């Protein structure tokens, strides 16, 4: 039996039982976000760093709904378009409360939201030197993934498709190649649309998936959170179970001997 309880996800020496990471953006309310996280079983959630609203002090705070002592906050640099902005954001994030595990995301284009890999690579090197544990959002290029690994990344997070597009994994071959070449945690980040996309990612051998829009913007976010939880477990179990070989021709499941 594949014992999923002993099959932990390890990132920067920290153990997690769930292989599903969820984003906290785009929910209708903080309470909806908190309930979806709970149903997803996620132990890591991505969060953004933004200005405090100094005019409306009664605005609810994420930390009041999602306890950072129970759920690992993964500060993210979403919205940063160069290394300088990303480094500033993560240094501030660390200052909020000692967060060292971070998600680096440096975007290069406002429309397709693809990562700027030159800026990403530069930032990874600096952050690793400063003692950050960096999980890096990147494109699905095996060569770039290798360079990130050599620059001190703690996890490789290639996109499945553009952020928020819901298109699912577009380049299975590349993800497979990255899986074969790296021992670092490989987490599909961005572009998933439905639960089965997460299963496919896990069956390709990924160590986890990161989902935000597909859950937050589903018609029923709570049900979708649960669906993703189950899909990730199913995909992991399937991957660990060793699939059959593919064959061009049919192979009957019932014995051919003794047919009347």
């Amino acid at each position, binding site marked *: 039996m594949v014992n999923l309880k002993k099959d932990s996800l390890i990132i920067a020496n920290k153990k997690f039982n769930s292989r599903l990471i969820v984003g906290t953006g785009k929910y209708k309310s903080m309470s909806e976000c908190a309930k979806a996280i709970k149903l997803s079983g996620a132990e890591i959630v991505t969060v*953004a760093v933004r200005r405090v609203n100094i005019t409306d002090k009664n605005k609810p705070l994420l930390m009041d709904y999602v306890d950072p002592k129970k759920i690992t906050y993964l500060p993210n640099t*979403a919205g940063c378009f160069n290394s300088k902005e990303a480094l500033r954001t993560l240094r501030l994030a660390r200052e909020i409360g000692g967060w060292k595990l971070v998600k680096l995301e440096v975007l290069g284009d406002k429309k397709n939201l693809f990562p700027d890999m030159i800026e990403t690579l530069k930032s990874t090197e600096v952050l690793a030197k400063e003692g950050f544990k960096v999980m890096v959002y990147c494109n699905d290029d095996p060569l770039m993934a290798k360079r990130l690994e050599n620059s001190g990344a703690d996890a490789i997070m290639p996109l499945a498709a553009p952020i928020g597009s819901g298109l699912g994994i577009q380049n299975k071959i590349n993800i497979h190649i990255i899986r074969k070449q790296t021992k670092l945690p490989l987490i599909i980040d961005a572009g998933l649309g439905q639960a089965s996309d997460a299963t496919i990612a896990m069956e390709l051998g990924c160590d986890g998936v990161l989902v935000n829009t597909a859950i937050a913007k589903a018609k029923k976010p709570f049900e979708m959170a649960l669906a993703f939880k189950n899909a990730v477990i199913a995909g992991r179990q399937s991957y660990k179970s060793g699939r059959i070989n593919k064959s061009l021709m049919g192979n009957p499941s019932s014995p051919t001997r003794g047919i009347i």
Partner: protein
Amino acid sequence: MKKIKKIKIKINGKIKSITDDSKLSAVLKNLKIPLNKVAIELNEEIIDKKKINKIKINKNDKIEIVHFIGGG
């Protein structure tokens, strides 16, 4: 009676008028900022939260106060 002098500074992009000679801690206290949930920059330099009562705020200073919000 000595007149209280005011100076203008920027907090999170908004111009604010504060009492001259204020310490950063007083400015944050006035805004009711929960210190354990934020990070603070003064003129683009990160401030050690333990030292805020030693830092004096000057005219045209730029303060940024950030926290975590929902994001992907």
